[in-house]
């Protein structure tokens, strides 16, 4: 059965039309990712309307092409001009641009492209192997556990807003509130529509997303009147010949860095709402720490390109993993993918891989295939990127706004959705101006329904109020996610106080200890073993610090250097 599904998926993906669309998508992603200010999420959002009329797998394969292309496209402008195309390639510029300026742009591009390729392939393997396991785990989840998982996803998104965590939390809660407007999905009762018939159906998720993200982003890009009229980039340099063979050899020599960075990328991708913008910096930082010659980082070293580029592509696999296994989007791009699946009446859940095996295998294959396509198209798209960067931002903004309008109308043939785009365009822009992070609000809108549905299911399942409330802390998975949520709320303070306050010495060991407790009550021997290992490690770490007289460690200022 498994092979039948696999071959059917293979047949669908390798159809001429699907392949052609994947080539188009990857090429578009490469160019879009290379344009500063034009994020991958926006590229995927703009692709979505084209996929409405396609079969689900064809549409998703196209979007995966855009996703993978976008992740790799950011390195082109980063290496050639020092301005990263997307936040996922920020760390690539530290060594990529320096190497290019030192006269090896071909090698720098080669290292970037091939690291993206290998990182993506490693993550594709992990996706195939781990997604079904994660889905099996998801089958153990009850409504209490799912509700707590959503809470954790929202808190971690907010905590990634750093010093703006309070704003991040507020944005997440506003997202939840937006989702409550209109008929409730459980009883079909109209609510919070203020007597307006047009609000009875509530707000569709995709117009909200396009308004918040694309509309708001475009207006931010054209805010400065003078800059909006200038070409996107003043000096994009000339197309260079990529040194493929030398790059591959160099990457194989740094295989440990490649594996470590890819693992970091996958892990960050699995975390709800953490994306390539975090994984590339984290991988760069770890590569520098592990290097025998850390002083070479920032001067054009190959490891400084391999680490961020392999990590950011690997993040995509992690994000798809959690989306397919649990229905939780790993980042904004995965949220759009979720929207695309919902349009085709496919709801990701733990049973998604078994219920929609052909689609699931198709996604695996498409993700795998997008990487060689990206390599093939890279040289062509480099020229396309050089052409596009001569266009002023205001031209792109006006055309894309019109395109958004046509695309959103095509969703449900409704002008109500266009007004939704305008309203949330205003909200998104205001949030940017007031420094509210957008991602928590988007996740709030996406996950709000899941939270309410599971809360309602928990209430209906519980025999009384005590059981309803107490099971949030008595069920092991629920307690585990709630504890993770609590510690993720404290994480920005931990980061700020690290190396300055003594309580930071116990924060991580305490977190490990607390997380070990619910794990002891989960099924299976492996989890008990992991819980015991966590406890032992935490006790050892505390003992070591006690012996050291609770002395604060010297702050490792890698991140400060990176930010600088």
């Amino acid at each position, binding site marked *: 059965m498994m092979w039948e599904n696999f071959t059917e998926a293979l047949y669908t993906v390798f159809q001429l039309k699907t392949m052609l669309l994947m080539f188009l998508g990857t090429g578009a992603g490469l160019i879009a990712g290379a344009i500063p200010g034009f994020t991958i999420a926006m590229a995927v959002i703009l692709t979505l309307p084209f996929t409405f009329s396609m079969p689900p797998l064809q549409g998703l394969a196209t979007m995966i092409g855009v996703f993978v292309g976008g992740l790799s496209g950011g390195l082109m402008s980063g290496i050639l001009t020092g301005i990263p195309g997307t936040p996922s390639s920020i760390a690539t510029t530290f060594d990529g641009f320096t190497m290019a300026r030192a006269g090896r742009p071909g090698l720098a591009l080669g290292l970037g492209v091939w690291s993206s390729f290998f990182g993506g392939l490693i993550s594709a393997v992990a996706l195939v192997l781990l997604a079904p396991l994660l889905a099996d785990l998801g089958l153990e989840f009850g409504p209490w556990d799912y509700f707590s998982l959503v809470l954790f996803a929202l808190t971690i998104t907010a905590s990634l807003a750093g010093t703006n965590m309070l704003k991040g939390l507020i944005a997440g809660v506003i997202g939840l509130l937006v989702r409550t407007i209109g008929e409730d999905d459980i009883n079909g009762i109209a609510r919070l529509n203020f007597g307006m018939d047009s609000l009875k159906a509530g707000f569709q998720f995709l117009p909200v997303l396009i308004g918040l993200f694309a509309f708001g982003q475009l207006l931010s890009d*054209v805010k400065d009147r003078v800059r909006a009229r200038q070409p996107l980039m003043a000096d994009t340099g000339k197309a260079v010949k990529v040194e493929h063979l030398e790059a591959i050899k160099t990457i194989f020599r740094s295989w440990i860095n490649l594996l470590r960075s890819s693992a970091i990328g996958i892990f960050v991708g699995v975390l709800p709402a953490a994306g390539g913008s975090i994984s590339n910096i984290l991988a760069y930082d770890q590569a520098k720490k592990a290097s025998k010659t850390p002083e070479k980082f920032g001067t054009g070293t190959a490891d400084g390109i391999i680490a961020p580029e392999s990590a950011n592509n690997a993040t995509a696999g992690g994000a798809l993993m959690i989306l397919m296994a649990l229905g939780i989007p790993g980042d904004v791009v995965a949220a759009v993918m979720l929207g695309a699946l919902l349009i085709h009446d496919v709801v990701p859940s733990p049973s998604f891989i078994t219920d929609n095996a052909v689609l699931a295998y198709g996604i695996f294959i498409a993700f795998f295939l997008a990487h060689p396509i990206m390599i093939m198209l890279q040289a062509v798209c480099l020229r396309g990127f050089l052409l596009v960067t001569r266009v002023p931002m205001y031209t792109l903004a006006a055309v894309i706004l019109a395109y958004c309008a046509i695309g959103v109308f095509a969703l449900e043939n409704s002008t109500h959705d266009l007004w939704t785009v*305008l309203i949330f365009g205003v909200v998104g822009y205001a949030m940017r101006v007031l420094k509210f992070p957008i991602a928590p609000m988007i996740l709030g809108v996406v996950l709000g329904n899941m939270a309410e549905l599971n809360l309602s299911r928990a209430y209906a399942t519980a025999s009384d109020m005590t059981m309803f409330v107490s099971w949030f802390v008595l069920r092991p998975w629920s307690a585990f996610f709630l504890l993770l949520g609590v510690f993720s709320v404290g994480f920005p303070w931990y980061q700020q106080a690290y190396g300055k306050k003594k309580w930071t010495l116990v924060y991580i060991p305490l977190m490990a200890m607390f997380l070990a407790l619910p794990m002891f009550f989960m099924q299976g021997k492996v989890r008990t073993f992991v819980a015991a290992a966590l406890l032992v490690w935490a006790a050892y770490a505390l003992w070591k610090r006690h012996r050291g007289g609770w002395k604060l460690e010297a702050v490792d200022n890698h991140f400060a250097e990176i930010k600088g």
Partner: protein
Amino acid sequence: MSRVNTDTVCAIVILAAGGAFFRATYDIEKMDYRSLGAEVWPRVVLILLFVLTFAYLFQSLKQGRDEKSEGGGVIGWIGRYQNALWCYALFAGFLLTMNYLGMLIGGTLFVFLTLTALGERTLRAFAVHAAVSLISVGFMWSVFTYGIKVILPQGEIFSAW
């Protein structure tokens, strides 16, 4: 008043909007059977919003006034955000005239006016803007109408032809 800053105003606006939403939860129909009422989840969310926004309000009051005020009053504010305001106004105009102009004519006009509002206003620029708007919207309209088979609003003017 010396403590009031942008964040304070923002927190007050969120609290006021939250209050209006909370009031609206009392208009939600109640159910007789055992199930989580349709008003429960919005109230939980709103209470959470109030708690967080009050914390945000206190934090903003502790910060004091904005360090850097861009000044200029209402005219200065309009000047700072004129590009965004142009886009909103033109997009709203595009939606309001959709029934008459349709997606093709309205879209082309929207792109042309937006380009003219944001870009340079020379004769050459007008010609470039006209060409860009005609080609881009015409291309997208054709793709959706003939390629994806989406029936886009024709508008009364187009229908009359």
